[in-house]
């Protein structure tokens, strides 16, 4: 699935050199993360088959901006719902059952549904956008299929020259294997 297009940079960024460590044990991976941070390493990537709070604590990353997307989407949806129902009622006024032309109570349903709809869609938008953004910063990095199964992994972007100390550090934390990529 290689399609030449301007977005290629986004979808398949240039490869980044570095060191990839595979951990069979969660606590080993956690220790490695802590050690790396202490060693002043930035922008290393941690693979895990499932979200683990231990890792999150160790990494303690900033809060995801996705929630802003959700919030804005929700508000937008609500107002669109209100506008649609009210505008369309007054655009061609038609009396039914002696009710007022634009009556709010029934339209609350519309507003609510639109809130949820837009909220959900913008949330998806948010996650996609952010993940993609992160990927472009990171570039293409090494990966191991086992990371989606039962292994944890850490990739540290370093030039081949300075990779030695990193490898020893990772080994020291108990990586099952460490290889250069």
């Amino acid at each position, binding site marked *: *699935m290689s399609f030449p297009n301007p977005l290629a940079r986004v*979808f398949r960024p240039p490869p980044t050199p570095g060191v990839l460590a595979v951990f*069979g*044990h*969660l*606590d080993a991976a*956690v220790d490695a993360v802590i050690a790396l941070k202490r060693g002043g390493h930035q922008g290393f*990537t*941690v*693979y*895990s*088959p*499932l*979200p*683990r709070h*231990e890792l*999150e604590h160790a990494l303690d*990353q900033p*809060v*995801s901006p*996705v*929630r802003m997307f*959700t919030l804005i989407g929700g508000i937008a949806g609500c107002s669109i719902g209100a506008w*649609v*129902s009210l505008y*369309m*009622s007054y*655009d*061609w006024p038609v009396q*039914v*059952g002696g*009710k007022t032309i634009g*009556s709010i109570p*029934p*339209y609350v*349903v*519309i507003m*609510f*549904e*639109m809130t*949820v*709809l837009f*909220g*959900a*869609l913008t*949330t*998806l938008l*948010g*996650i996609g956008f*952010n*993940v993609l953004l*992160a*990927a472009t910063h*990171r570039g293409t990095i090494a990966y191991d299929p*086992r*990371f*989606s*199964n*039962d292994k944890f992994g850490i990739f540290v972007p370093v030039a081949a020259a300075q990779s030695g100390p990193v490898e020893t550090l990772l080994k020291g934390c*108990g990586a099952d294997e460490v290889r250069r990529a």
Partner: protein
Amino acid sequence: MTMTPTTAPERTTSRVTYDVVTRTIARTLGNPGRGYYLLLGTAVGLFAFGVICLLYLLRYGLGMAGYSMPTYWAIYITCFVFWVGIAHSGTLISAILFLFRSGWRTAVYRVAEIMTVFAVMTAGLFPLIHIGRQWFFYWLVPYPNERGLWPNFKSPLVWDEFAIGTYFTVSTCFLIMGLIPDIAAVRDVATGWRRKLYTLTAIGWRGTNEQWRHYRPAYLYLAALATPLVLSVHSVVSWDFAMAQVPAWHETLFAPYFVAGAIYSGCAMVITLLVPLRKLFRLEQLVTVHHFENLAKLCLLTGMIVCYAYSIENFVAWYGGPTPERQAFWYRAFGRFWWGGWTMNICNAFLPWLLWFKRVRTNITALFVIAFFVNLGMWMERFVIIAVHLAGEPFAPFVRAGYNATWADWGIMAGSFGWFFMWFLLFVKNFPSVSVAEVKEELPPPRRAAGKHA
């Protein structure tokens, strides 16, 4: 309403490791054997028959169905409400229980969600089928047109359209969200065309800390949005009836009554689907009796609410109701369609009492049977509320008349079951029907020093 301590799975599935989980679930994507294809064939056959009936309906008109004055709504709307109801447990289990952090959901929520999406898909067809000029269904959608006409937002049917549309979209998003990490997991163990498929559908998931960082809150927000949605959708559906002045429809009780009923039937359907699926895909290790018991408890709770709703509406009709209201409920119990009324009472209000007993809750065969009858009963409940109370027509006694369904009714209803199971079976065969990542969350992570908790 946390059903069980989160350590429970560790107790019940102690020998299960991450690897076992991945392998077990990956195996479900292999050849499931003749039984599966038999089921699939039946489903497709039913669907085809339904399509033929539908073509007749379109060509000759709704007269092919059994409608007759004053029963203007019948089987099709019954099926609509039935399927929407089925669709409810899915999002309930995946969203509400997620917010409640009840761990047992992880093993079953995927099946529930798949069921949800396809059930809504099925339900959505019926309003289109049952209208007189099906080819103009899009007039209900507010799109700018040359005539300058808009739909009537005061009509519960338009609310319905919005509610169902939203629910379908959101529950689909929810399903896909949950699927992505799992597809990635099976991608990495799959081969051949499946690998290609999963590579494509996993849209580059690798479980990096960045991805998880955005994924988890997003999932949470979706759950937060989906939770009121679940409660709203069937409320809106119930208002299709409650907003009308037909006696036995015009009840403030309807929204909670219908939501409870929906979850009730939904859970029953989950059990109905999970029991054979568990056998078919040999998921005994992941989906245990413990999960069924919790589903049963959910059934019990909602069943009790339904039971309460029945008794209250009858009581109110007797106690405060104006004559037509009383007439309507008398007609339900002793009128021409008494059998319908009693079927729903027995299956929905009396049967769940069995679930008070742990021996029943933990007996899968018993659960399967009860679930089946609950499904039957819930279908009948909708039929009674819709067709029977219309036939009973308390306001205009002169037109009170019977109702006889025709082959077109049954054919299209059968078709809807075929349609649902066709998609369901195809999906569970080709995508992880149990969440890989989340089941793992319930397992003790591998540690160097076993037993030492981080």
